[in-house]
């Protein structure tokens, strides 16, 4: 099973972002490294960046990260020898399960972290990835590392 490792510190940051944005959806970019040492892909998150939810409408149900922003973050991270490996977003008062809309708009290869958030809590975080044929949006392993994973996070705003 594919697996993604996130430090507890980054998890806390994403949870805080989800709570601050509640009842709107929050969204952000995952920066990290991907390797396939034994045929099974492993991914480690080395930084998380908050994004603006640029969706023009009901932000409690939708998020949008603009290509300009993604492009800018990609340029910056690639210069630092890292890569954008996925995205996170919250589901206010909804479970940490991809919606049909999530699947319709997902890209393969990226890790999608979904945070279920309520007014008082972030009860669950789960990781998903779109299959190459786009037919299924499968849950992947999510390992929360107790110690921060080496590099410091880059946060903006």
């Amino acid at each position, binding site marked *: 099973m594919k697996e993604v490792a996130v430090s507890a510190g980054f998890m806390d940051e994403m949870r805080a972002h989800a709570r601050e944005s509640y009842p709107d*959806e929050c*969204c952000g970019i995952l920066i990290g490294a991907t390797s396939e040492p034994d045929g099974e892909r492993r991914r480690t998150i080395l930084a998380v960046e908050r*994004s*603006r939810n*640029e*969706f*023009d*409408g009901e932000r*409690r*149900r*939708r*998020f*949008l*990260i*603009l*290509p*300009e*922003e*993604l*492009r*800018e973050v990609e340029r910056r991270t690639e210069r630092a020898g890292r*890569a*954008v*490996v996925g*995205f996170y*977003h919250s*589901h*206010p*008062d*909804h479970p940490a399960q*991809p*919606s*049909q*809309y*999530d699947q*319709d*708009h*997902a*890209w*393969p*290869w*990226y890790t*999608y972290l979904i945070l279920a958030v309520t007014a008082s809590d972030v009860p669950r975080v789960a990781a998903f990835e779109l299959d*190459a044929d*786009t037919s299924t949006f499968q849950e992947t392993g999510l390992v929360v590392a107790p110690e921060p994973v080496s590099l410091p996070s880059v946060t903006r705003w």
Partner: protein
Amino acid sequence: MPKTTVKVPTPLRPFAGGAAELALEGSTVGGVIRTLADANPALKRHLFTPEGRLRNFVTVYLNDEDIRYLERESTPLKDGDIVSIVPAVAGGAPSSARSSSRPSKLTAIAPEPEESFSRDELRRYSRHLLLPEVGVAGQRKLRHAKVLLVGAGGLGAPTALYLAAAGVGEIGLVDFDSIDLSNLQRQVLYTTPDVGRPKLAVAKERLEALNPGTRVTPYEERLTSANALDIVGRYDVVVDGTDNFPTRYLVNDASVLLGKPNVYGSIYRFEGQVSVFDAKRGPCYRCLYPEPPPPDLVPSCAEAGVLGVLPGLVGVLQATETVKLILGRGELLIGRLLLYDALSLKFRELKLQKNPECVLCSPAATQTGLIDYPAFCGVPTSEAPLAQGTVPEVEPEALHAELESSEPPFLVDVRAPEEWAIAHLPGAHLIPKGELPERVDELTRASHLVLYCRSGKRSADATRLLLDLGFSHVRTLRGGINAWAERVDPSMAQY
């Protein structure tokens, strides 16, 4: 055909043989992308809809420009161009109301630009659209925004220019002046051939020429307690570019009563102030200054002078805050007073607190409507200053005749030395108004005194002072040196 490089985003590389970029030939952007897709069928479904249209969350850049702001897929290519495919990332929770219906991708994702902005508009605002903090959604907010500028002078001119350029949909302007040559040193909306024309007619012309998408509504009248609530009520944000205290308090009070943010700016010689007063989120102008200063302590720009570029900077800061208010972005100057000193080029910031006893915006507020602002500020309601008309006056022509006679009056110029240097009456004696009380002994030997200043206001006050001190034969030159220049000596400079 032009040779180009196509950059493939990370998630799609496995479908393009793992390549990060490919060298492809094609004459248009759409052409090379289709070539790429045809060569890699697995890639195709990620780029195109089953109907063969580019999926709307696939963004394509030609070099550094989004092709939606160029000629889209028909954008022509030349040798060496770089075409980048960039994903827009979207998603969201299931819609609780219509969880079964699949949301339309067209309306759910970045709006199709041609639905709301024309090609020209997309190009005009492209540098805004590229900013994540503005984008199409922000630009639409600007288009729907209504901003009232009170005053189309030194502050209003740069503010209006930038707001129109930024795409603010509606700008209201309140002013009743005509353009004077002395305005052009700082009021950059106007040009030399405009001198003598009404400010608002020229402003409307200029701003609508700058941006035909901006509608400019002129209110060629004084803002008063009778019309302020009606006019201010039509707008989302008020920008205070006034040059006097009665109007400043009026703008503040109307904004607080109507719950509108008030972007405040003021200038004095080399110093400027900017803040955003929004009583819902912070203090109002009255929290800062519950009472106006005594009227004779606050010389206007006409009396004190002002560095011409100063209102440019202050007005642009006001425009910046206005745009941020509209976008709902960034940290606003709410509860902060920014002080700028052009001479030392220093900015300082003061924290402002909401006054818990503010008569207007606190829970203990006692004022629930507009008041008589000229009376509140101690300035006369008529056009003429208070002392003028109540002290003995002399008309310029009569003074001219007296000066030619055998017993000419003793002339006292009560202006500042800088003004004296511009022009003064021959034979006059300079005693700036502020120095008058300690220098009255210089006047005791004169039998008849005539005092003058620029427009007659200060010399009327000074005349009142001398009469109160016991001088009996004192008069003021009505209309000041400017009236003299107009009616007696056209060769003399007016300012």
